[in-house]
């Protein structure tokens, strides 16, 4: 097994981070997203938002206080990414982050099925984290060089944070996989549970063709993803699942193949939609 590819986020040094104010400033200077860029930003933002929503549930329920803090931190980072991305997406047609988060329907969301999966036990949450954080790490690493300066700056900031998320998920995968018999069994089950939703993450759409040089082509990330995850699973004494991929019924990220999205939104939007136009 190769440990060399399992980098530790603790090796990352802090860099210059973009702030919400800088994005807002850029937008005031007339840099607004085109409809295609907005749709792309919305896709990334929805993934981050829904995962933050899922992870936020753990705060006060985690196996240790340290994990309440860690999962809370990861959720906060993701929520930060979502806010940047939704703010930018909204600049295309004058909508705010809250318009997009609270006043879109189930059909209008673009989140992937992986982040919509329920928290399950801690192993399910870690399995989802392992796959998503590795995907997000590779995605943001490439997106940091985007021809769109706002997307590039958001990715640059997000990359430093998802590197920690990846480290957290990797460290727990090792501990659960190679811990006790029970944790090994639960972790193997969990990884098999989330595995069918991988294909959707790496499926190219027409949108990516139109945004050549701006968006990252998802299929281009697959080989490195597979190699890294296989290394982590091997180090954790876990098997790479051999399970069928769930078809993109009704279209990639359409929500047509998800029964979870509606419940997530029903909870998240419940208060805001009862008070349309209100300021909080």
């Amino acid at each position, binding site marked *: 097994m190769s*440990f060399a590819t*399992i*980098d*530790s986020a*603790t*090796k990352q040094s802090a860099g210059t981070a973009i702030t919400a104010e800088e994005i807002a400033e850029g937008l005031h200077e007339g840099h607004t997203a085109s409809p295609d860029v907005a749709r792309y930003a919305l896709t990334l933002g929805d993934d981050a*938002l829904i995962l933050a*929503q899922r992870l*936020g*549930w753990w*705060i*006060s*329920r*985690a*196996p*240790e*206080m*340290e*994990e*309440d*803090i860690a999962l*809370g*931190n990861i*959720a*906060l980072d993701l*929520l*930060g990414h*979502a*806010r940047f991305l*939704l703010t930018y997406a909204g600049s295309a047609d004058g909508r705010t*982050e*809250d318009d997009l*988060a*609270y006043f879109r329907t189930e059909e209008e969301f673009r989140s992937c099925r992986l982040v919509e999966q329920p928290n399950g*036990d*801690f192993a399910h949450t870690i399995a989802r984290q392992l796959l998503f954080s590795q995907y997000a790490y590779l995605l943001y690493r490439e997106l940091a060089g985007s021809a769109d300066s706002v997307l590039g700056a958001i990715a640059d900031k997000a990359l430093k944070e998802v590197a920690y998320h990846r480290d957290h998920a990797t*460290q727990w995968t*090792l*501990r*659960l996989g*190679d*811990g*006790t018999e*029970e*944790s090994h069994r*639960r972790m193997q089950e969990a990884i098999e549970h989330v595995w069918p939703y991988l294909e959707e993450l790496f499926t190219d759409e027409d949108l990516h063709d139109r945004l050549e040089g701006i968006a990252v082509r998802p299929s281009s990330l697959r080989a490195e993803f597979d190699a890294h995850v296989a290394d982590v699973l091997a*180090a954790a004494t876990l098997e790479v699942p051999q399970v069928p991929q769930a078809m993109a019924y009704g279209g990639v990220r359409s929500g047509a193949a998800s029964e979870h999205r509606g419940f997530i939104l029903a*909870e*998240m939007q*419940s*208060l*805001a939609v009862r*008070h349309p*136009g*209100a*300021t*909080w």
Partner: protein
Amino acid sequence: MTVTDSSQIPVDRAEIERAGQEHFDRIVAADSRIEPRDWMPEGYRKTLTRQISQHAHSEIIGMQPEANWITRAPSLKRKAILMAKVQDEAGHGLYLYSAAETLGTPRRELNQQLLHGRAKYSSIFNYPARTWADMGAIGWLVDGAAIANQVPLCRCSYGPYGRAMVRVCKEESFHQRQGWEILHALSHGTPAQKQMAQDAVDRLYAPALMMFGPPDSDSSNSDQSMAWNIKRFSNDELRQRFVDMIVPQAEALGLTLPDPDLKWNEERGHYDFGPLDWDEFWRVVKGGGPLNAQRMQRRREAHAEGAWVREAAEAYAAKHTTTTTALIGD
């Protein structure tokens, strides 16, 4: 009795106690700090262990009412602030348990005391957080009362507790401000939002006032704690200070405090306020509050459901003391 210390010089236990007590008394009289390695009376150690661990338990149980609204916060900004706040509370719990551990009781044992109902936590958290406005009222009133209680604790004679309180108070003041801001937005919002804010204040005002503990006439632990410089002001003094502080704040918010007896007393230079329902207070303390059972059940469930995870981490650590270093790198 003669015992042997590490340098093999025979010493007299009674002599150690006498010198220790003298040193302790001198430090307390000089209003200075007792540190973990200093000799201290058993009663002092016990009182502080109880108080600091209760404080830690309150932070941990106190996460629940607010965590209840993380998934439903009505804007992404509010969601981020609330997440950060509840996370701060877990952090407060951690350093308070660490402070308590310096007195000799491990966190695991303190946690067991909470889970088995042998330790208390602040009763306020046994009231439900029914609406979003409760996030405002908890921040403004509950964190406000906590600050009034905790600022004097920054000068507590026990060093680790006093220092922990300095940091906790800084964060609590942010928490109070965000609560105020939530209520301000609601009370200046739609009529439904304003009603929501008033309703939350109506429900949480009296329980917040009771956070300072029973009236001085019924408070069993106070005198000794004052003599030891753990406590600086009595329950009633702190409660009065809090009421004096929140009355003008309520006016600025445009909200009413639900106490018909509340009025300025020129002679005393303080606000008079009406009697509190101490029967309700004792009922909640003894476990009969609206949500005592639910709060404890949730904590016990989280602990029980996390058992296999903690066992896995321990098993992994035992197997991989050397390879972990290779994986994480240096």
